[in-house]
């Protein structure tokens, strides 16, 4: 018993010593990348969601509560993307600093304007997010704005490092904005593509390309045969590409592609868990390349 107590206390002491800088928890890999870019190399960032999982569907696991228990700041995508698990995990973490409305809770979607906001809050249209499309992570321009806001938040929490945070955000924002004209120029002339879920919308808007359809009949519902028939009829004779993530079932996209004579491209929604800005820009490159290939 005495040994157990000693172990518990030494673990607690270790955790206390390690927390010299801001302890940041990010919900997704993109948010983790942003936190590291803004916070600098010294910042300790834990990412909750594996990049190859659907961020809507996760469960509030004890390990998430564990990570949130000691965090100073949680960086979430927001707009109800993590609705199913983040509130439950924060609740289970018993860490009042992270409650929405406090400085320790940062939502990316709250910092920028959202697409599709104000649509009918009617689940006849699937698992809709009436506050707007939460998938802002594929928009480098919005991510730049989010980086600047995140720097201000981190500066509030650790004023001594404010200059570092602002410089980090500026560096990311400049790098992102500098690449935008190139991506736009490459993608120009692409016929656009079909998405599985409404998660590439911001990038398509930035590139000025049309979204020709969605493999899901409504958000959160797997494709049905009749929906794929309708899509085929609508898109017959057009050109394009079908984009989906590795975790989304490939059957629907492949069936549609074979009927239309198109190609499918498996593109990730998130970079690796430990990604830096370069890896994030590569992710955008992958999407742009898939759309460029659709020019035929």
């Amino acid at each position, binding site marked *: 018993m005495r040994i157990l107590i000693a172990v518990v206390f030494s673990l607690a002491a270790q955790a206390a010593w390690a927390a010299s800088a801001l302890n940041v928890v990010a919900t997704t890999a993109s948010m983790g990348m942003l936190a590291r870019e803004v916070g600098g190399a010294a910042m300790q960032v834990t990412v909750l969601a594996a990049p190859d999982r659907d961020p809507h569907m996760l469960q509030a696991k004890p390990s998430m509560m564990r990570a949130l228990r000691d965090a100073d700041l949680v960086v979430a995508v927001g707009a109800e993307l993590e609705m199913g698990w983040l509130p439950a995990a924060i609740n289970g973490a018993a860490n009042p600093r992270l409650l929405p409305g406090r400085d320790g809770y940062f939502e990316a979607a*709250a910092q*920028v304007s959202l697409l599709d906001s104000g649509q009918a809050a009617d689940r006849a249209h699937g698992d809709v997010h009436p506050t707007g499309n939460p998938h802002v992570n594929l928009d480098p*321009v919005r991510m730049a704005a989010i980086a*600047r806001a995140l720097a201000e938040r981190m500066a509030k929490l650790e004023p001594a490092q404010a200059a570092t945070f602002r410089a980090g955000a500026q560096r990311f924002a400049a790098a992102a904005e500098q690449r935008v004209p190139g991506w736009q120029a490459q993608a120009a002339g692409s016929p656009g593509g079909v998405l599985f879920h409404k998660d590439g919308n911001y990038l398509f808007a930035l590139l000025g390309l049309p979204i020709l359809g969605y493999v899901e009949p409504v958000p959160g519902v797997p494709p049905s045969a009749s929906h794929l028939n309708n899509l085929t009829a609508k898109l017959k004779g057009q050109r394009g590409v079908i984009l989906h993530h590795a975790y989304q079932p490939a059957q629907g996209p492949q069936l549609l592609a074979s009927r239309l004579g198109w190609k499918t491209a498996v593109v990730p929604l998130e970079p690796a868990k430990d990604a830096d800005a370069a890896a994030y820009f590569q992710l955008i490159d992958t999407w742009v390349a898939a759309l460029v290939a659709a020019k035929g």
Partner: protein
Amino acid sequence: MFERNLLAAALACAFPLSAFAASDAEVAALRAEFDQKLKTLQADYEMRMKQMESRMVPAAEPTSRTDKLGAVGSGSSFNPQISVIFDGVYYNDNKKGGGIEAMEHIDGINHSHDHEGHGHGELERGFNLRETEIIFSATVSPYFDATLNLAVDSGGGVEIEEAYFDTRALPAGLKLRGGRFLSGVGYLNSQHPHTWDFVDQNLAYRTLLGDHGLKDTGVQLGWTPKTGSLYTLLGVELLQGNEQVFASAGEVIPDDVLPGEGGLKPKYAGPRLITAFAKFSPDLGDDHALQLGAWAARGRQHQEVHDHRDENPAAKVNGLEGDATLWGLEAVYKFDAPGAYGEGDLTLAAEYLWQRKDLAVAFHQDNPAAIGLGRKFTQDGAYLHAVYGFAPNWQAGLRYDITGMTNKVERQGAADVGYEASDRWTLAVTRRLTEFSLLRLQASSANLYEDGDKNRVNQFFLQYQHSLGAHGAHKF
């Protein structure tokens, strides 16, 4: 570029005459002046162009130094989040509808003490509307959240399933809950029926904790200490100990048997039931999760009145009182596969529960000599279930549950009584149409002992569930 040439031409035109009349030195001076002016203009022009270009970058956002607090949500401001859960089943069994009642008469130490005011179990063959759950929750203030969970049965009766507050702002990983709530003991106890992977409660919970599990009025203190990468939750609860199968006080001997006072002791002041629980979960990465837990509960006062005159008019009434002890162990493993809509996900959960009621005879209708003799009731139970996502939005669940591996009454001054163990196999297939709707087909086959006789009870359920309103939490 075109504008720049134009500018140069215009400047050149401004000096033509003086250039003709002037000496070489003057020409050189003028040229230097001209070059200087041109350079200034060019620099100024380029700076303006750059400014314009930078403005053309799609700046979605204000560049002021601000960050917005809070969450973007569709929650309706100050109004509570509301959700309603509809639950209906088509039911049939091989006992002409008697299968549900057979579940309630399983041989064991609690079989004759049904304190439930209403039952999840009252199903008839055919279509049934089960309890409709209505859940309200909101933040009260910076310091409290509150939740109300009402269950409306098909006859219109309303019961407060849960009504509690939670603290928001306690430091050091502490959380206090107060009101009426499902206890934090065990893995399944705090789960509402709409989050179960099966239509009905497992036999171990049903017989040892009651159909709803352990639910009482009191306070719960939870603590999430700093334990490195190991998740730890420690909790203790002080509960009233009302109307539990193992903790019930204030029972009275019927007036026609014992008029007036006497027999059983008056109710002790609460809290009469204390629980403690611990849950641990190591960090096993993104794919795996494991939670281990243990709990114990102690009821300071428990009373039972055994009155079987309804079934047998010659039966004698007796009353017992004493205390009760329970403990349990739980293990939950989850595998999170990368597939969409839960494909490939696996959950394994197992629990063991043990209960002892240490009572003594406090009243006996025709044998006062028995008063004071001990009666030690012991029973245990367990379940093991596996749920696997075999296709997107499809789950298959298999459950084995058993109660009464130990199932006996040790009687002072009389022979001990032993009961058989009852067990069951259950298969359930769940189709989640969306996050908010499901259909479930469940078949089970049980060996239930009633009065020493073995009954094979086969049950069949077809269940639908719909939830509207606030998006539910994906709890572990």
